[in-house]
């Protein structure tokens, strides 16, 4: 994707919706499970978008914008670091690698579905 004003606007608008949606999930699911939820759901959706026959504009809006902002690495990493700071290495490891496993399975499932509709 080359840098263009249209792509930038689509990414920004998608990011706006993704951040608001993540915040809404945060208010309904307490604790780390909200971050797990957004990261896994967003990975499934992005896995779908990159294999489904959608155009560049849809990838910019829904993929780079929405899924990119709906999911978050910084909140996840800070959560892992806080658990480690508190000495709870077991929970930190399960959080870190459980999220990874679920997200990669999610990407595979989303990608398989996206490839099927293509």
């Amino acid at each position: 994707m080359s840098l263009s004003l249209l792509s930038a606007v689509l990414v920004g608008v998608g990011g706006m919706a993704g951040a608001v949606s993540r915040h809404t999930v945060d208010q309904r699911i307490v604790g780390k499970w909200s971050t797990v939820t957004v990261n896994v759901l967003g990975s499934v959706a992005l896995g779908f978008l990159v294999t489904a026959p959608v155009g560049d504009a849809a990838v910019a809006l829904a993929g780079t914008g929405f899924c990119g902002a709906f999911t978050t690495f910084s909140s996840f990493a800070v959560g892992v670091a806080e658990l480690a700071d508190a000495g709870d290495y077991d929970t930190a490891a399960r959080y870190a690698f459980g999220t990874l496993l679920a997200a990669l399975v999610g990407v595979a499932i989303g990608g398989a579905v996206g490839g099927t509709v293509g």
Partner: protein
Amino acid sequence: MDRSELALVAFGGFAGALLRYGASVAIPGAGGTLAVNVLGSFVLGTFITSVSSRRAQLFFGTGLLSSFTTYSTFAVQTASLSPMGGALNVGANYALGFAAAALGLAFGGRR
């Protein structure tokens, strides 16, 4: 949740996604995602331990920094790499991202 607070998250999300897009054009591929994830994790760690304003937290923390970093792009890029490349990508994002977050928490907590 009042609407002005939701607007702070929305504008922060707009700015964060746009900055991430700019970074991905400047540094294409997994390297660009690694850069935003590590940088964003450090700044978020610093921010949440040094700024207490709820409105600032909503704009910069929940909105901008959380949208600047991304897990979904990281996961999709990891899956698209070779097994060795994917393992290196996970190792780099996790080791550097967690270290950056821990450094940020320590740095912000001292201020």
